[in-house]
């Protein structure tokens, strides 16, 4: 009995090697570890905070002096006006922007990217400590906090969930579907008919896009989220679903069977999901992520949902996605013509 169990276990392991499942076991921890390394670890402990001050603004001298003297806590950066400050916030060049409060003298308004975040909490705590050291227990310098992205935490995470859904359909379901048709010789059976290769590819593309649209629609029906500009939002989901469905079909063509396709799908899924979704937490990831099509989908969705972005102002992003979609579709067509791994 023991001998049989060992024999069968070794056989299963051999199959796992053969269909490349074993690579996932190595790849997933490696990739998660690598992504976590790129997330700014100092955030959780101590990191110098970049504070933006407006050049011509008349701040209370005591506040200015205290901030400048706390150079181990704050780095002060000057911005020309509030608009530039907000832009720097989005680009993560600064962590917070200080404006003079119009309501109360000697008070400040703190502008941050998100109100509900560890970073905002850290800025407020540090200011409170500095103020205590400088003035004792007087009225708080920061009288108001204004977020650039105004919405609840639930909605803040929506772009990440949307990206997850889109990538799940595109990189996990679509490659397996294509590889299954190759593995069972169904695609060859279909190629025994007058059907043209491009017709099959477009049908698969529609399948991917429909699955993505149903998943996103279902999520919205459940969550009843405010969409911002509906037309831009739907258009971007459409362009994204085209790009990633096409990408998924291409991955399917690189595999001989479903098991390999699933493995390859996960290998592409994580590097597209994590850097984009975690880019909010890391300047390093923000520098790397723009090269990924997932980031060019994720950021515009965020912009449409939170910053009144419109598809007309996001031309570069949707053209990029369209090009990636067309390129991968063309590669799939070439592989299909060559009967690649069929």
């Amino acid at each position, binding site marked *: 009995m023991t001998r049989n169990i060992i024999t069968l276990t070794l056989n299963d392991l051999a199959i796992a090697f053969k269909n490349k499942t074993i690579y996932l076991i190595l790849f997933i921890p490696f990739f998660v570890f690598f992504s976590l390394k790129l997330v700014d670890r100092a955030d959780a402990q101590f990191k110098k905070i970049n504070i933006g001050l407006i050049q011509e603004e008349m701040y209370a001298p005591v506040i200015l002096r205290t901030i400048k003297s706390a150079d181990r806590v704050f780095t002060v950066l000057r911005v020309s006006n509030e608009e530039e400050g907000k832009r720097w916030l989005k680009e993560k060049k600064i962590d917070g922007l200080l404006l003079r409060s119009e309501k109360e003298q000697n008070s400040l308004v703190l502008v941050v990217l998100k109100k509900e975040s560890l970073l905002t909490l850290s800025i407020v705590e540090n200011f409170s400590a500095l103020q205590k050291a400088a003035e004792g227990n007087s009225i708080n310098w920061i009288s108001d906090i204004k977020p650039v992205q105004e919405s609840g935490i639930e909605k803040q995470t929506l772009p990440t969930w949307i990206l997850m859904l889109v990538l799940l359909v595109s990189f996990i379901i679509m490659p397996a579907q294509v590889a299954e048709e190759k593995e069972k*010789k169904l695609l*060859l*059976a279909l190629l*025994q*008919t*007058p*059907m043209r290769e491009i017709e099959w590819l477009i049908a698969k593309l529609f399948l991917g896009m429909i699955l993505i649209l149903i998943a996103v629609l279902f999520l919205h029906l459940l969550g009843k989220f405010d969409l911002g500009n509906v037309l831009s939002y739907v258009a971007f989901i459409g362009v994204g679903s085209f790009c990633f469905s096409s990408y998924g079909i291409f991955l399917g063509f690189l595999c001989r069977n479903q098991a390999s396709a699933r493995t390859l799908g996960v290998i592409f899924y994580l590097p597209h999901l994590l850097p984009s979704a975690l880019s909010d937490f890391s300047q390093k990831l923000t520098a790397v992520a723009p090269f990924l099509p997932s980031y060019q989908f994720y950021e515009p969705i965020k912009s449409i949902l939170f910053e009144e972005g419109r598809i007309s102002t996001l031309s570069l992003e949707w053209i990029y996605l369209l090009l990636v979609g067309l390129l991968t579709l063309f590669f799939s067509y070439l592989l299909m013509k060559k*009967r690649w791994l069929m």
Partner: protein
Amino acid sequence: MQIEIHNLTKVYSEKRGLLPTSLDVEKGELIAVIGHNGAGKSTLLKMLASWLLPDSGQVLVDGINLGNRSAVVRKIGFVPETPNLFDFFSVEYNLKLFARLFQVPFLRIEEVLKEFDLLPFRDNKIQVLSKGLRQRVSIGRALLADPPVLLFDEPTSGIDFEMTKEIYRLLKDFHASGKTIIFTSHRPEEIKTLATRIIVLHQACLVFDGSPQKYFQSEIHEKLYL
């Protein structure tokens, strides 16, 4: 000539695939391609069915180049060794799907179901059918567009004696109706009374092409099978 094959080549490795092969097939012939495993029988048929792309060479079917796939698929029906059908769907669904793609009327499906005794199984899913029945559905599908040339890759592989006899009866019927048939087998004794011409492949080379009578008296038969 219905099929003209000029220097058709596909090389996987040394002695695997099909080395440059030329032959002509007349309309209405019933040809058995025989040889041991790996001799190149399936490679030849798969290239004729556009499943494999040749490394070099040319094939004309009724004057149409094999490269013109959308035109040539109406000329050739291919029945692979393992039926490649949509397992989760019914017999009728499978035939309807291919009838749509071939743009043949649904009336033809009824004819095929009747011709291959599939009427009682029309609503059955493919996955619950025996291999013999699946093979019949596969043959029915290949005949939907009524192609003049039929290719069968090991049609009796893995099926019982009764079903083998049934398949051979079908091949004879198709031949009698004027179709050109090429099928592969690695059991020459079985096709003794069936084929009008025998082609023998050995280690990717064509080593015999002639009548069954000549073949069974030849040294090749003795060398390869006795």
